[in-house]
Structure formats: C-alpha cells, structure tokens
C-alpha cells in the first residue's frame, strides 16, 4: 500500500514538476508542460462526477436523518437534479440555424433555453445578492477595525479617508479650489488617490509579492523532492 499511497504520488509529483521546469527552458519540450497541464484538466473533469456523487450522498443523508434544516437539503437536491436535466437534455433550446431539424444542435445556454432561464432569473440575482452583501460587511468591519491606536494607525486612517473621498465626487468637491494644472494640482484628492495607489500601494504589494514568490518556489521544491509530504497525509 505504501507504494500506491506514497511512492507513486511522489513520483508523479516529482516528474510532473520537473517536466514543467524543463519545458520552460528547453523549447523542444514546451509541449510536455502543456500535456502535464492537460492531464490535470482531465482529472478535474472526472472530479465533477465525484463532486456530484458526494453532494447527493451528503444531502440524502441529511434528509434521511431529518436533522435541523433537512428541508434545505431537499431544496439543494431538487435544484441540482432539475438543472442537470435541463442542461443535459437541452430543454427549450433552439436548434442551430444550419441544422434546424436537429434539436441537439442548439446551444445549451442560448437565449430562451431552460438553462438560460435558470441562469438569468435564478443564478444571476442570487450571485449578485451574495456579492452585494460585501457593502454591509465592509461598513461594519471599517467601524470596528479602524482605530487611531498609534502613529501607524493614524497614517492608515488618513490614507483611508483620502482613498474613500477621492474615489467619489466628494473629493472633487472638497479640493476643487486647487487648480488642476497648477503646481499643487497633485494635491487634489482625486489625484492624490491615484498617486497613493500607484506609488505607496504598489511598493507595499511588490514587497509582499516577492516574499510570496520565494515562498512558492521553496514550497514547490520541497513538494517535488518529497521533503514536504503533508499534503499526501504524511508529514512526520
């Protein structure tokens, strides 16, 4: 079992990693890197079946146990199966104009199809709702987290005010008296915002990015060489 669960996965990891590195430097092998990537895509495609199976199992179990909130599991299963059916059988799609007699030639997500309907009137509003919740959470997080505890925090607060006001017409309104073309034009809030983002923010982000890149390189090396095997369920 050690061969199947340890040696072979480590060999695959090492070889695939090496192929990726070699293909970056030796043009002749550039296709090998792509093939390694394709293998992952094939695996990921099969994983959809695994995911679907697991989804069914988890929610069927919840319904069968009839624990708190089991009704939601019922809703999940009904939505999952209906969407699958509508998508697989291209319910309500219009055939491709080149093949008007062949129902299956239509585009699954074409306007007017069942899948399109579910997307347009169910998925789209729900996703937008989840995203818009951010506005509320940003406000409550700002209220709680921004405190002028020390000098650095005061700097952070000042920057936050410039960015917040400079991003809307309030910034233009407040510093409109500074001529844009004059020597102090850069001090207008909307210009100051861009300057802060381009210079200070970029410098900070780059420093973090260099650390991240080195971390990625070092972690990749450890994984390729089998020094770090914890992702396979073994690290000790």
């Amino acid at each position, binding site marked *: 079992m050690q061969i199947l669960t340890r040696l072979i996965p480590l060999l695959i990891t090492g070889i695939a990693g090496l192929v990726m590195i070699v293909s970056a430097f030796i043009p002749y092998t550039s296709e090998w890197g*792509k093939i390694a*990537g394709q293998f992952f*895509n094939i695996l990921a495609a099969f994983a959809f079946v695994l995911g679907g199976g697991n989804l069914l199992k988890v929610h069927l179990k919840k319904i069968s146990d009839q624990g708190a909130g089991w009704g939601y599991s019922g809703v999940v299963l009904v939505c999952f199966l209906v969407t699958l059916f509508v998508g697989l059988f291209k319910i309500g799609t219009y055939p*491709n*104009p*080149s093949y008007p007699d062949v129902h299956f*030639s239509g*585009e699954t*997500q*074409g*306007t007017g199809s069942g899948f*399109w309907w579910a*997307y*347009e009137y169910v*998925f*789209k*509003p729900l*996703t*937008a709702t*989840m*995203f*818009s919740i951010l*506005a*509320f959470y*940003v*406000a*409550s997080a*700002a*209220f*709680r987290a*921004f*405190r*002028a*505890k020390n000098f650095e925090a005061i700097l952070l*607060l000042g920057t*936050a*005010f410039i960015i*917040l*006001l400079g*991003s*809307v*017409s*309030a910034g*233009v309104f407040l510093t409109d008296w500074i001529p844009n073309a004059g020597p102090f034009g850069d001090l207008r809030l*909307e*210009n100051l915002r*861009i300057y802060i*983002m*381009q210079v200070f*923010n*970029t410098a900070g*982000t*780059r420093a973090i990015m260099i650390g991240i890149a080195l971390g990625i390189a070092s972690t990749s090396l450890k994984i390729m060489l089998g020094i770090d095997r914890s992702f396979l369920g073994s690290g000790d």
Partner: protein
Amino acid sequence: MNFLNNLDRRWIFLAMALCVGVPILVIGLTGYTFPETPTPLAEAFFDEVDVAGEAKGRRANVLLAFDFDPASAGELNPMAVSLVHQCAQKGHRMYFISLWPVGPQMIMDAVNKVIKVHYPEMVYGEDYVNLGFKAGNEQVIKVMGVDLTTEFRTDVEGTTLSQIPMMSGITNLEDFDLIAEISAGYPGSKEWVLYASTQFNIPLVSGMTGVQAPQLYPYFPNQLKGLLGAIKGAAEYEYLVNQWVRLDKLTGILEQAGLPPGEAGPLAAEFAASPDQVSTWTVSAAASTLSPEAKAALIEAATEPIPGEYLEGQRRMGPQLFAHLLMVFLIILGNVIFFAQRRRGGGS
C-alpha cells in the same frame, strides 16, 4: 455612549441600506447624476479605443474579452456597455471572447443593450462576432497568440469560423489592433498583460474591479495603455464616451449638410457643450444652407436625452458617494467611541 459602544451591527447595515437605496430611488426618479471629472487613466483608455486601427490605416479589429460574471456585473457592466458603445459608434469590428464560463452571457447582455437596440444596422459576422467561452485560462491566451483557430473553431452559435466573413485574415492575436478587456479576477487583466500585451506587443486596455486595480496600476501606461478601476472608472469613461458620441453625431450631421470639416467640428463642439444654442443657430443666417431635415436632426442630436443604459456608471456613483461618506462617518464615530472609552479608562 453605551449604546454606541455596544452598537448592534444591524444598525450599520440599515444605515448602509439607506445610503445606497435612497440615492438609487432618487436618481431613478429624477435622472440626476453627479458630474464626473475624467482622470488621465480613463482618458487614456478612451483615446486608445478611439485611435485603434489608425496606425495601419484600416477599420480596427478589436478583441473584446469579457472576463467577468454576474456577481461583479454591477461593478463592471457599465464599462462593458460603454466600451461596446464606443466601438460601435467608431465602426470598429468587434470580436467578443471570454475566459470565464458565464462570460458569454455578459457579452450577450452588452450586445443586446447596445448593438441590437442602438446600432441595428450592424451585421453579425461582419461587424461583430461572439466567439464565446474557452476553458484553459492563460493557456488560451498563449495559444491564441500563435493560432486563434486552435482554441476557437466555431463561434458561440456553432458556426465554423471559415463561414464568418469577418474572421478571414484573423489568424492570431497580432491581427488585432487592440485588446480591450474587462476583468473580475483570475484569469483577467494580469494574464492578458503577461501573455498578450507583453509577449506580442499589442495595445491593451483594461477595466477591472476596485480590488484588482491596485495590482494593475504598475503596468500603466506601458503594458496597459488605459485602465478603468471599478464603478468610478466606469463613470468617468461613460461620461467621455457619451460626450464624444454626441459630438460625433453632431459633426456627422453638419458635415452631411455640406459644412466643411474644419467648420463642422468646432461648431459641433459648441453645440455639445451648450445644446440650447442649436435652436437659435438653426434659425440664423449661418444655417441657411441646411435642409429642414438636417436642422431637425441637429436639434434632436443635441438635445435628446442619453439612454439610461449609457448612464448606469454615473448613476451608480450616487449610491457610491453616500456609501463612502457613511464609511468616513463610521470610522470617525468608531474613533470617537474609542477615545471616549480610553479617557474614561484613564480617568478611573
């Protein structure tokens, strides 16, 4: 102070809901928008789309990559609509693609709002084509750089590319005069910068969510010729496009009526700045050469209200303004509570 100290966050949610909801209602009813002052980033974006194809002296081929989904559509859709608006008015050939699975719907949305309604004369397959979604993230961009047909064999409706007239002569990314990209994350602006504009030296402009923008600023203006960040960037760009479209229409009418280009341009700019002047000018001696139809068209072009879909960005700046002001207020309030507590703590 105790109430504020233990403030239930639902009060904050309510305040935010009001700050966003009330301006939406008021702007929806009155149509009033806040004035926009375009920043150099938005101006550069606009200019790059405007001059596309001029270097080669031809009608521009513009690749429009809509890499976003419904979740970010609120932030990005207005700039996508304005981008299509500018390209359509300019007469660019538009090639739509997406690296996001739900991107084709975003494309359809913009096409339905702009081309189908305001430019019905544009023909699918000759003036614009929707190549749809392609899985593979940045790999798709890399392959498109060499051979576009490897990744895209048909358009979104399943028609083979050889049957689409505007696809003749398009083999790889270098056949495009401009890449205009709208991005909500990965794959998005950064991948287009790294694998298209840097590799093949093709002009690239990009619009993106506010969270992404700080990471992309360093690429402007070399690898990224223009940049629109969040709804603010969209509003600025929308303002520029709307102003230019009106000016372009007025210039077109005046030129068609027989005025020389050198005269029509400044006159149109004058009318665009103050539409009230048109009605007085049309009855003056200077307009005696214009036909009654041309005069009517001129008055209509100068005074017609801008369609709602072309004002979405500017309208959304209203709620944005009040939401930002609320944030500033909350931060100040939080600090007032903090200092009051500290003083009390210090006193005891």
